C-alpha cells in the first residue's frame, strides 16, 4: 500500500485492517513473503493511525449558507471557550 492510499483510509478503516493483519499473522498460515508484506503494511498502518491521533486541533466552523452549490463557512467562536482556557 502506498502513502496516497494510506492517506485515503479513514482511521476506522485503518484500525480494522490492522486488526485483520494481526489476526492473519497470529494464525501464521501464509507464506513468508505474504507475512512479511502484511507485517510491513501493519507497521505502516500503526504509524498512520498514531499520526492521525497526534493531529493538530480540529476546526470549529459555522455554516453561513449554500450559494449556487458553494458551501460558505466561517470560524465559530463560542463565547465561553476562551474563559475556560481550552
Amino acid at each position, binding site marked *: 500500500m502506498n502513502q496516497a492510499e494510506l492517506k485515503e483510509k479513514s482511521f476506522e478503516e485503518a*484500525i480494522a485492517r490492522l486488526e485483520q493483519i494481526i489476526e492473519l499473522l497470529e494464525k501464521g498460515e501464509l507464506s513468508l513473503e505474504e*507475512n512479511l508484506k502484511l507485517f510491513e503494511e501493519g507497521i505502516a498502518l*500503526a504509524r498512520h493511525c498514531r499520526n492521525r491521533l497526534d493531529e493538530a486541533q480540529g476546526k470549529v466552523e459555522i455554516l453561513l449558507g449554500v450559494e449556487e452549490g458553494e458551501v460558505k463557512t466561517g470560524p465559530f467562536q463560542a463565547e465561553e471557550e476562551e474563559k475556560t482556557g481550552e
Partner: protein
Amino acid sequence: MAKIYTVSELTGYIKALIERDAALAGVWVKGEISNFTRHSSGHMYFTLKDERARLRCVMFRTENRLLPFEPADGMAVLAAGRVAVYPKSGEYQLYVEQMEVAGIGSLYLAFEELKKRLAQEGLFDPARKKPLPAFPAKIGVITSPTGAAVRDIIRIARRRFPSVDLLVIPAQVQGDQAAQSISAALHLANTLPDLDLLIVGRGGGSIEELWAFNEEIVARAIAASRLPVISAVGHETDFTIADMVADLRAPTPSGAAEVAVPELGELRRRLLMMTERLRMAGLRVLERKRDRWAEMAGHPALLKPQRWLDIKRQRVDEAEERLARAIRNLLEKAEAVFHKELATLDALSPLATLRRGYSICRKEDGRVVREAGEVAPGERVRVILSRGELSCTVNRREETLDEPGGTEGKEL
C-alpha cells in the same frame, strides 16, 4: 390636571380592587400547566393556560406538601385559590391552595397520537437505526449557535478528541419556526460534503420550548437523513419524538458529544496494544520461517551435489541473504516503534504519576479515597507510594471546599 400617581400607589389601588372582590377570593380554574418549576424553597411556580390565555400561578410549600401528584408541564389541572397582585412584578396571580388532575393535556395528547402513528409506520424500529461511525472526522451540529448546548458539545468533543472538526449548522430551536428550521437544517446537512455524523438538539426548557422536537416534520427529517443522527434534547428526563426516531438518543447535549467521539487516551492505549501484538506476531512469523529455512537448507536432499542444485545454488544464497536482510530490517523497525510506544505507555501509566511524588490513598475495601469525607477518624487506610505502601490510621479529618483532594489535617 389629573392627579399623578406613583407606580406603587396605582398598583396598590389595583391590588385593593382585585383583592376586595369576593369572587376572586375563592375561585376554581381549569387549565394546562406549563413552565413548571419548583423553587429550592419548596414553592411551586407555573402558568396555567388554555388556547387563548395564560395565568401566572404560585403554590406555596405549605399547600403543595399535601398534593397527591407531581405537577408537570402539559398536565391539565383544576386549581383553586385566590387571585391577588404581586406588586413587585406588577402581576396578578393565582395563589393556589388546592389542585386536582383534570385529565390529559392537549400537548400530551398530540405527543401520544404522533408517537403511536410513527411507531405503526415503523419509524422507531431498531432495524432502521444506522450505526454511528467509531471515529467521525467531522460532525455537523444542528442547534442554536447562541445556546448553551452548542458550547457544551464543542467543549466536550474537543476535550475528548481534539482533532475532530465541527460544523455548526444554525437552526431555530424554539418558537413557531423551529420545527421548520430544524428540518431544513437536517436536509441541508445531508447535502454537505465531508460530514460523518449529525447531532441535533438544544438545552433544557419548558415543554413548549422543546416542542419542535415533538413535531412530525422534524421526526421525518431525522428518519430521512442519510447521515447518522444523535438527538440531544433538553435534560435527561425529557423524552421527545425526535429522540425515538434518532439513531441514538443522548440524554443531554454534553452526553451527545461524549457518545459521538472516542476518547483520545483510550484510543492511544488500544493502538499501543495492537502495535505490540503486531510486533509479537511478526517476530513469531520470522522465527518460525527462519527455523524452517535452516532446516530445509540443511536437508540431505539439498546438500547432495546434484547439478540442478549447483545451478540454483547461487540463487538460494541470494535469497537467503535477502531474507536475512529483511528480517534484520523488520526487527530494527519493530524495535524502534516498540521503544517509542513504550515511552508513551509509561507516560500514561499511574506509576509515572506516583514517581513524581503523588500517592494513592485506599480504604480497607480497596476503594480509592478522593475526599476527606469518605473516611472517618479512626478508620484504617492504605497509602500507595511509588515504591511500597503505608498502612495508616486517620486521626483527624478536615474537609475543604475548594480542594476536595486535600490531605491537610490527616496526620498519619
